[in-house]
């Protein structure tokens, strides 16, 4: 199962990040998680939101360039070593992870966003190994 992530390219200029988040706020797009990776000149802001398509549309209208990327969100036990075990499984089955970040933590479960270069393959590995993923619809309940 895939979830659409919203990626925004932003120059490292003061106020840019707040401008992007302002557009989302004005259109009532709720942010569930984000990761900001940056170099000295620019950064990529990656967001999991409740309505990625609307978010992208509004960002485009406001002159921001963004992209929808498919990622997997896995639901794993909130226990020491559980993420490591899953990565080991993915690795053993020839999958690869480009980047990842946490989504949310409940008392006994945690959600992690995974980005791979071959999402069909990753999806298959996750399914075959009974690793639980969530859909766009499930996001609302996270």
């Amino acid at each position, binding site marked *: 199962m895939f979830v659409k992530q919203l990626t925004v*390219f*932003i*120059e490292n200029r003061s106020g840019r990040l707040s401008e992007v988040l302002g557009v989302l706020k004005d259109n009532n797009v709720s942010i569930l998680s984000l990761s900001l990776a940056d170099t000295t*000149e*620019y950064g*990529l802001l990656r967001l999991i939101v409740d309505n990625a398509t609307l978010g992208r549309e509004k960002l485009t209208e406001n002159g921001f*360039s963004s*992209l929808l990327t498919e990622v997997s969100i896995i639901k794993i036990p909130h226990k020491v070593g559980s993420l490591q075990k899953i990565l080991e499984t993915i690795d053993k089955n020839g999958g690869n992870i*480009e980047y990842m970040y946490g989504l949310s933590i409940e008392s006994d479960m945690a959600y992690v966003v995974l*980005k791979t270069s071959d999402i069909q393959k990753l999806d298959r590995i996750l399914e075959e190994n009974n690793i639980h993923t969530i859909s766009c619809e499930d996001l609302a309940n996270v």
Partner: protein
Amino acid sequence: MIWSKEETLPREEIEKIQLERLQETITRVYSKVPAYAKKMDEAGVKPEDIKTLKDLSKLPFVTKQDMRDNYPFGLFAVPKDKLVRIHASSGTTGKPTVVGYTQGDLETWTECVSRIACMGGATEKDVAQICFGYGMFTGALGLHYGLENIGAAIVPSSTGNSQKQIMYMQDFETSLLVATPSYALRLAEVAKEMGVEPERDLKVKIALVGSELLTDAMREEMHKFWGKDILITSNYGMSELMGPGVSGECLEHCGMHINEDYFIPEIIDPKTGEVLPEGEQGELVITCIKKDALPLIRYRTKDITRLFYEKCKCGRTFCRMENLSGRSDDMLKIRGVNVFPSQIEEVILSVEELGPHYEIILEREGFLDKLTVKVELAHSTDSFSVLEKITAEVRNKLKIILGLDAKVMLESPNTLQRFEGKAKRVKDLRSK
């Protein structure tokens, strides 16, 4: 099609006309323009010393500074009441340079531009939208009268209000576009934003571009936006000499034919002022031989080019000047290296992931010049490796071509400034 039979005259006949007109012009300016008489006396040349075309090189040059020193009408060869039009350059530093036209000059101008528009494929069937700024700038009115003379329907839309420009193109079925290369690209961008696909939804088949360099890379970029079949030709001129109409490209794309019965071109070494042999690159110097009001003699254009005299496949015998490689004015000296912004442009346009807009920033850090090139991503990406690959590619190519290390800054699509007239892409902050 060829507009005038003069364009195909044999070389001897062209030279005969040139010599007659040159001698007449020199005699006239010597008696009517004190500033010229003074310059010629100082150089020890009299009008009767001009016996052959080669003698032209005995005459002193005229520069933009001479025009400023004689502001506004000091170099004019007719009394003010003979003028029917006055134009002026933008004059970003100090006084503008002023140019004037008699009724006869306007007719000459119209003839020259008609030839150039015809070379670029224009006919009476065209609907010609002129997206040059109307006003003191000669570009718009020059093309206006030339195209009208051919019989095209003129849409004098000027610059700005790009969405309305696209609406005119759709509703009037504009077939010919007059603009700077950068504004032509901007218009295509705006059309796309409006959901109008230039190649599919518009009828523009001819673009006459000018007032900015048209590099091969820029031409390719224009084809990408406007379609592969659009006829793109560049034309050349400057207000001091007349405005557009000095030279223009034919559809063979092998340089711009100079209207040699009105202008004599020379190529000089910009440092020594020596006339260079045929085919060598140097500064273009132009003498106006059929102008009443402001016949500039040996005007230094500061444009760097070469001249070719072989007959063109199009049938014209007028010599061709290579599409400009730069203006000596635009040339930047960065850490001792001569750099034309057009060289940087070629690099940027060769990188597929980048858009055609850019900015060049020069700063001084201690004793060193620092070159920064701001470029715009054409599309978004989710991958740092793609972003790193783009910056590395631009940096490496600049290093190979210029021998200089540059800082490359990526910007989001549509963030760099767009221009409607001449693009100002260089910010030189070194003197401040």
